[in-house]
């Protein structure tokens, strides 16, 4: 040991022997080849390899669920009666008002008719 420290040539020979079996892995070859390929060529290859990227069907339901939750509405088909319900109240109120008006008109007319008839009968009796 001491002899080797004293003799630099012996030291070098020992270091050479110790590093004799240094070998890179196969990845080095891949890395070198990648490094010499121009970036645009790499991007062109990546473009081809990612052409058929697509999400699963469940993605649509997930988006609709998130949107439904955020908007406070159920993300389903609208009920067939949604439009009917919206205008149904006005239709009912209108119909009820028309019925009340009709009843009032009918009673008013009847009362007026009765009083005219009674007056006519009274005047006939007076004449007789």
């Amino acid at each position, binding site marked *: 040991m001491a002899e080797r420290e004293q003799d630099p040539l012996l030291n070098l020979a020992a270091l050479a022997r110790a590093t004799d079996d240094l070998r890179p892995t196969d*990845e080095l070859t*891949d*890395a*070198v080849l*990648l*490094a010499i390929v121009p*970036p*645009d060529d*790499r*991007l*062109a*290859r*990546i*473009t081809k*390899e*990612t*052409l*058929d*990227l*697509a*999400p*699963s069907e*469940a*993605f*649509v339901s*997930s*988006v*609709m669920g*998130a*949107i*439904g939750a*955020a*908007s406070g*509405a*159920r*993300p*389903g*088909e*609208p009920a067939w009666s949604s439009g009917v319900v919206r205008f149904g109240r006005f239709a009912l109120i209108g119909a009820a008002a028309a019925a009340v008006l009709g009843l009032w008109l009918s009673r008013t007319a009847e009362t007026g008719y009765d009083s005219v008839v009674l007056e006519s009968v009274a005047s006939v009796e007076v004449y007789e």
Partner: protein
Amino acid sequence: MSVDLRLVAARVAGGDVAAFRPIVDHTRVPLYRLAARLVGNLADAEDALQDAYSSAFRALSEGRYDGRAKIETWLYRIVTNACVDLLRKRRERPAEDTREPRFDGLVRAEARVALTELDVMLKALQPQDRAALVLVTVEGLSAKEAAEALGCSEGALEQRLVRARAALRTKTEAGEVSDGRA
């Protein structure tokens, strides 16, 4: 079957939440691909796309879609913005844990490896430069279309492309050859 998405969008604007489904259904594939290529991984792409669709729905409901651009083009812009925002946040606060994507059942292993390689390759770029490079070089958009998607002028887009390409060349010359496959 072709669907006029502008008519569908008008129904959404009128309060029909369910009408948004055909919009998602018709646009999800190209937009998923766009988001994945922009952010470089599927989990982040799914988050950005969900955010983008939510933003689009809100905009439609509130009458903020003016109908001048096609729905597809309009959504493309929203997704690009969502991805650039996500890239910015990722630079400011790098995530410590890797999340798993949830809707990647149809994605091939080859595409996953390619995405990882893309992310490693573009990691050092500024989000806007990265987006410009992906839109033009990977998505194949014209300069005008890419500038519209990024909301900038064609001149600004050109500057971003020059910066991105220079950064990529410098990285390659410096010997940073990792391809993310380790």
